[in-house]
Every structure is written in C-alpha cells, then in structure tokens.
C-alpha cells in the first residue's frame, strides 16, 4: 500500500497491485540477422511500475537457427534495452543483461536449432518504460535466422514459432 495526498490535503491510501503484461507474437516474419543490431520482433513491451522499489521480470522466448543461404554456423550477440520514449531517442542498454548464443564454431556445418529464453530481473525503473531485445551476428559469416524453422514433422517445410513475452512487476 502507499499513501498520497489529494488536492484538499486529505490522506489517500492506495493498494498497489503489481502489474503483469503478456504478449504473444503471431506468425512473426523470418528475420535474417547480420552484423548490425536489430530489434527482435515481438520482444518489445511496455510496463508502468506501481512502485519504484519493485523490480521487473522480463522473459522472452524465440526461435533461432542457421540461415542456410549465407553460412554454415551462427553466432549471435543479444542484449536487453530500455527506453522511456518508445526507443525514439532514449535508448539504453540494461547493464549485465546480455549474452552470446552460438552453434559450434569448429565443425564444418552446425545447424543447431535453438529455442532461447531471455530471462532478466531489472531494478530501478520508475514510471512507464519500454523494454526490448536487440541482437546482431558476430560477423556476416555467422548469420542466423529467427522465428522460422525450415524443417518440421519430418518434412522440409517452413514452420513459424510464435514468440512469447511476459513483463512482470515483482
């Protein structure tokens, strides 16, 4: 609970209910990732914290595999960013919220089909903020594709994995 004063100086008490936002991506278009940072489709969400002391849990699930047309292995840098103007001009990396993910870099070819879950606890967000994941390939020789698999159910056919995002005040 929190205590505030109205325009008449009267004490008003509020029960602060923690927020949760759930987003489901639907048929995201395949993203080919080169060595420039790109926002991962479906990873952006907004939350208004009810209390600055509360932390935020960010969890995003997406599919990665090799881009067969450009290489035989893949290597991705992934980082979480925050903004208070929907990433128009206020864009900040969340410190410590980044990771690498790659196929084996030694074998001649390694497709590695991966479902990655980015899960970070963040503090210090006050008011409305947007969060998103951006990624880039280590080099243009190591480019993956996101969201779309080229094989499923034993046949060479396109299968799209819908992303899921949960941003939760904890």
């Amino acid at each position, binding site marked *: 609970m929190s205590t505030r004063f109205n325009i008449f100086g009267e004490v008003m008490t509020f029960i602060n209910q923690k927020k949760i*936002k759930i987003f489901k991506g639907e048929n995201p278009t395949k993203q080919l990732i080169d060595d420039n940072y790109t926002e991962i489709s479906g990873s952006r969400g907004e939350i208004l914290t009810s209390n600055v002391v509360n932390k935020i849990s960010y969890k995003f699930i997406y599919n990665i595999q090799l881009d067969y047309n450009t290489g035989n292995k893949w290597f991705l840098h992934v980082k979480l960013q925050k903004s208070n103007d929907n990433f128009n001009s206020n864009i900040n990396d969340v410190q410590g919220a980044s990771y690498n993910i790659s196929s084996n870099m030694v074998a001649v070819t390694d497709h590695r089909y991966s479902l990655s*879950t980015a899960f970070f606890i963040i503090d210090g967000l006050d008011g409305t903020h947007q969060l998103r994941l951006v990624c880039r390939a280590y080099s243009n020789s190591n480019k993956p594709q996101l969201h779309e698999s080229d094989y499923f159910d034993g046949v060479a056919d396109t299968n799209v994995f819908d992303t899921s995002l949960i941003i939760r005040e904890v």
Partner: protein
Amino acid sequence: MTYLGINETYGKNTQTLITVNTAVQNTSNTAGVYTVINGSEITYTPEANTSKVIYEIGLYAEAINKTCFQHIALEHNVSGWTQISTKFGRNFGGNNSQYFRDYLYFRYIIPSWSGSRQLRLQSGSHINNYSVSYHQITDWDGTGSVTDRFCNTSLLVYSV
C-alpha cells in the same frame, strides 16, 4: 502482437536476486567436484496456504574450444545441503573441442514447506576436464578477447 492481460497479481511472497557478476566462475576440472553457481543461493520462506514454490533462474555459460559437460543439481539446506530430488537434475554440454555459448534458463516447481529454507544450484561433471565457465562473455560485438563483460545472474522465487 496480441494483448492478453494487465493488472493481475501473480504469485505470493515474491523474492528476487540480481547478482552483478564481476568475475568468471569456472567449474572444477575434477570429476565429481561441484561448484555453487554464483547468484543461485537464496533463503526463502513459502507463503502460508500455498502448495508450490517456483524457482526461476537465468545465467550465462560458455566453453571455448573445449569439451564441456555439466550436471546441474537443485539443492536445499535441511540440516545440511542435499539434492531436493534427482528428478530436478539437468545436463548440458557439447562434444569434443566444441564451442558452447548459451543463456541458461531453468524453472523448478518445488513442493512447499514450512519455515525458512535455503536453495541453490550446483554444477559439476562426472568426467575430468569437462568444466564450463559461467557469467563471463568472452567475445562481444564481433570482437574476440573481450575480458571485461559479464552477465548478471537473475533469480526469482515465489509461492503459488
């Protein structure tokens, strides 16, 4: 994108731990020797009248041009540290002289208990020299030999 919900409270007695790692944590190269993963340990008291405790953790792991194979065990401290259940065990790793880079996310649903109890994750291998390195990201932004970049360990525990 479909909007599904807002303003719902989820879980009770939620506790979080953000561990800002500043050093690499290498597991042992000796078979059977386990290492407590930095940022995984928490003391937790379940909310009354709940039946389950959810333990969620995210952390970074890599093995550069070497074999790695690790067992992850979830432990609690009840008059000493023991595995909660072997069914909570998990393996990960790669083959000979491979590169392993991944962000690990684990979620466990644990039967609730009464009172305060410690929880943690341990990591080790059954074979010599199959160690892994946690937290340090050694290649970043297309550049090798990076030594000063680390990934936080994020831990979330709550009762349902």
